[in-house]
């Protein structure tokens, strides 16, 4: 076969392939007719009940990132950072110049600055794509619970109109509404303490998050988020990723009460010495 023919065939096949798989990956186009394959509640709204999890490495870095050495020498490949493709539309986070410099500084001082290291509440949208499952409980009277295994974090999404949040918090205030088959969650009242990932991407207390959960099939949600923070970014920006239903037999949220795992790190220097102390290091970890 001539090279150009080969090239054309490959191009055609890949275009066809992309077209075929893109609805699965990218989620439904807005305004698309409701998918009859979507699970529904008695009231006709999509039924999002279940245990879900993001699969990917967005929590390591929202943007394109190559694999790299992990933070603990002794843990070698076990805690090395996996590579991942950007979940940011256009792969660009539109930082103001000062903020771009701060993000770089955060990245370089990750271990001492990332709130996840201390088991702090994750905020939104990070709670959704941390490497732990979360459960959606959709109720008859419209409030929707999202409970996260990480740090026992949770939020109740109030449907319809809500009063402005009285105070800024780690998880903010979530107000939900349905737009067709999409659950739209407007999150306000977030404080400036949380990050977007382990790469130092950050925001101020002016953060406004709008999440869109759209069922694509019974076991797949399309998750899109618009992030707005006029104090830190030059314009709103978007992330998008699929969320998968955990289908493991007997799947349930387990405890990841990580406070217990950070007390030595945070308070160890204040503990009364008994003389039996061993230096805390990877060598002390006991693997199953």
């Amino acid at each position: 076969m001539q090279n150009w023919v080969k090239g054309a065939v490959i191009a055609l096949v890949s275009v066809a392939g992309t077209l075929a798989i893109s609805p699965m990956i990218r989620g439904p186009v807005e305004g698309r007719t409701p998918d009859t394959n979507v699970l529904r509640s008695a009231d006709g709204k999509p039924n999002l009940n279940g245990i879900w999890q993001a699969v990917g490495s967005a929590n390591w870095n929202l943007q394109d990132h190559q694999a790299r050495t992990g933070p603990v020498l002794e843990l070698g490949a076990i805690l090395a950072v996996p590579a991942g493709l950007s979940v940011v539309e256009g792969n660009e986070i539109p930082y103001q110049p000062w903020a771009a410099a701060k993000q770089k500084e955060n990245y370089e001082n990750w271990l001492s600055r990332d709130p996840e290291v201390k088991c702090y509440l994750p905020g939104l949208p990070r709670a959704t794509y941390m490497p732990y499952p979360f459960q959606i409980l959709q109720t008859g009277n419209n409030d929707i619970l999202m409970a996260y295994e990480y740090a026992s974090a949770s939020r109740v999404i109030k449907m319809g109109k809500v009063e402005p949040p009285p105070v800024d918090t780690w998880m903010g205030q979530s107000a939900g509404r349905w737009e067709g088959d999409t659950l739209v969650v407007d999150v306000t009242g977030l404080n400036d303490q949380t990050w977007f990932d382990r790469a130092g991407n950050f925001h101020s207390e002016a953060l406004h998050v709008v999440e869109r959960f759209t069922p694509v099939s019974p076991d797949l949600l399309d998750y899109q988020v618009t992030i707005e923070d006029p104090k830190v970014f030059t314009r709103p920006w978007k992330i998008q990723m699929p969320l998968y239903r955990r289908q493991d037999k007997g799947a349930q949220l387990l405890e990841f009460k990580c406070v217990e795992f950070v007390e030595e790190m945070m308070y160890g220097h204040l503990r009364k010495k008994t003389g039996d102390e061993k230096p805390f290091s990877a060598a002390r970890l006991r693997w199953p």
Partner: protein
Amino acid sequence: MRTRNRGLMSLAIAATVAVAALVAAAGQEQTAPANTAEVAKNWTPPRTPDGAPDLQGIWTNYTGTPFEVPDKSDKPEFYAGDLDGTGRGTGPSSFLNDTTDRQLTKATSLVVDPPSGRVPIMPWAEERRNYKLAHIQDDWVNFTPWERCITRGVPGGIFPAGYGSGYQILQSPGYVAIVYEMIHEARIIPLDGRPHLGGSFRLWNGDSRGHWEGNTLVVDITGYNDKGTVATNVATQRVRAIPQSEELHVVERFTRVDENTINYDVVVEDPKVFTSPWKVAMPLHREPDYQMFEYACHEGNRAVPNTLSGGRARDKGAPSAKTQ
């Protein structure tokens, strides 16, 4: 937010205690019926769309009733962490605590069984509690898991603490969830008859499995670790900081007896810690306007590091609060 007026409430309580007629009046207003079954017979709870009794809403557990029947051997200041009478401690020593909107019932204690209103704690467990309370300046593991911001436990998380008293119950087919204001825990209870996790699984809050018996939600909990405590807050007095063992077995019953009341009762059984099972019965009050606030406990935990650093300063010969 509910409005609170400490002075008025204290006055009301003093009056109630003093005047027998007012006690009777308070009795009429009380939302905890003397006989659950009787009330449940006369009142049909609303149903969720899938037909389950509807427990949903925001509930609070304010109470003016002491956890146990008081005894002259009790040492309220000690249970509160005030070891040497200097006023240092981890909370006010009175069970009344910050409970300004407390509800009165005819009960003399929340512990209803044994009839003495006293939890049958084994002596070793009381000694263990005493040691831990006396050594919170040495190591964080001597605090209760509540002060460590891990959990108030199950059932401890529903025992009145005096503040942070909101609970939101949500239901979806096959599940009941209880969102605890304190420690921001969402406890998800499956109702599909699945077995307990079993095996080596050990959890701070155990493993909850629920089912309906008539209009009552019955939750069976096993699979506890032995790091937690049965109760964490000063309002639970002598039972605070009593350890739980891996043999802890808890059965909770939630019965909505009228529009605004869930009767909550729980039987606690732990043959390593208690000489017999014991039972707490108390009402939860529906309070739709109560606003639950985020309880970002660990994020703002100064109690643990400050207590420990106070201990290290003491070790170096710093004067104690008592001698200052």
